[in-house]
């Protein structure tokens, strides 16, 4: 247990004191960047298993990921980000992983920083750990309008959760076993990052943010283009509100189904 709380990088799963860790990389037409992302993960986070969820890509995504050494699951139809990520959580749940991380395929997340997410989970201090670009001033590499949008969302999520959240749209995050089980049974579809924070909060799981610098993306395009920014904001705010009003699921029933 103690060794994992020391410095990265870990060399093997033994450093995790028996914890098994999965990195879920949802990918839709990311052939350009996915290979390098997977190789980075394999090199810099060798204590994890890398699972690429190919969300019905029409390019070479699956082949590139497999060649780079990832395990690939191919969805027969395009489910969108929420459905793809949830597939990874279901895999983690069925295969008894203790930790599951979300990692973008486009190269903006840093594999080297995964231990920052793992530490609070393994110490039992949190059930969901989010890497935030805004906890340290140097972290953000984004346009002014986008940062403003994120701040508004952050205010809304913080209000609902009664806890300070600085980067609700960050897809760089990790969960422990409770989070894996929750997400395997219910996961938001359209704007999963901010919504899932509220979801987790409603089910009594503890959320923690840690500082995480991110890179610019290597290829592909953000799912949030500049034109639909306002539209996105309004929809996400509505979705957060709805998520806050929804009845929590009872996990036992869901699993039994």
């Amino acid at each position, binding site marked *: 247990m103690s060794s994992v709380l020391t410095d990265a990088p870990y060399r093997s799963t033994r450093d995790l004191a028996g914890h098994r860790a999965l990195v879920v990389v949802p990918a839709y037409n990311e052939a350009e960047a996915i290979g390098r992302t997977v190789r980075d993960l394999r090199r810099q986070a060798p204590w994890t298993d890398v699972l690429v*969820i190919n969300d019905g890509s029409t390019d070479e995504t699956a082949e590139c990921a497999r060649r780079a050494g990832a*395990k690939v*699951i*191919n*969805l*027969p*139809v395009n*489910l969108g980000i929420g*459905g793809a990520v*949830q*597939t990874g959580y*279901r*895999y983690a749940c*069925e295969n008894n992983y203790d930790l599951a991380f979300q990692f973008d395929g486009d190269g903006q997340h840093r594999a080297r920083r995964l231990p920052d997410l793992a530490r609070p989970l393994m110490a039992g201090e949190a059930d969901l750990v989010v890497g935030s670009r805004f906890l340290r001033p140097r972290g953000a590499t984004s346009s002014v309008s986008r940062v403003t949008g994120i701040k508004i969302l952050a205010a809304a999520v913080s209000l609902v959760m009664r806890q300070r959240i600085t980067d609700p749209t960050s897809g760089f995050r990790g969960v422990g076993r409770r989070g894996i089980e929750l997400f395997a049974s219910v996961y938001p*579809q359209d704007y999963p990052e901010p919504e899932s924070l509220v979801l987790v909060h409603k089910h009594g799981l503890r959320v923690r943010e840690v500082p995480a610098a991110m890179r610019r993306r290597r290829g592909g395009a953000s799912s949030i283009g500049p034109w639909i920014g306002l539209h996105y904001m309004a929809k996400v705010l509505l979705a957060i509100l709805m998520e806050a009003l929804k009845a929590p699921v009872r996990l036992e029933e869901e699993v039994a189904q």
Partner: protein
Amino acid sequence: MMTWPQRIVLLLLGLGILALTLELIRRRRLREEYAVLWVCTGIMILFFVVMPNVLFSVGAWLSLDHGVLMTFLCFLFLAAIVLHYSVVISRHSEREKHLAQELALMRDELEKLRAESRESPPPPAEPKPRPPALRT
């Protein structure tokens, strides 16, 4: 008041909807759960044919003349149908997502099993004992 021609047309309409719904269920082209709204609609229309005054007093209470009242009722009915469909579509998309995920996970499992069986071919099957001859 409702004129006799109006009553006859509405009567035929109500009976027609009910008959069509029941026939579609009988031929298994329409599932019962989706037929509830249509059966209710048919029954409502028949109810208005028999007791139109109930409808008209509601209209009078809302200060609506007959035309507006009918339009309002039609709108209400269509809104109910559309809402019902939205619920059904949501349920189906959730199921579709679940099935796609299950399929992807199972295909992965299958490939793993195949790879394993290639690595270690199963022991050759023992020759099956011949079935005993049937005695009659």
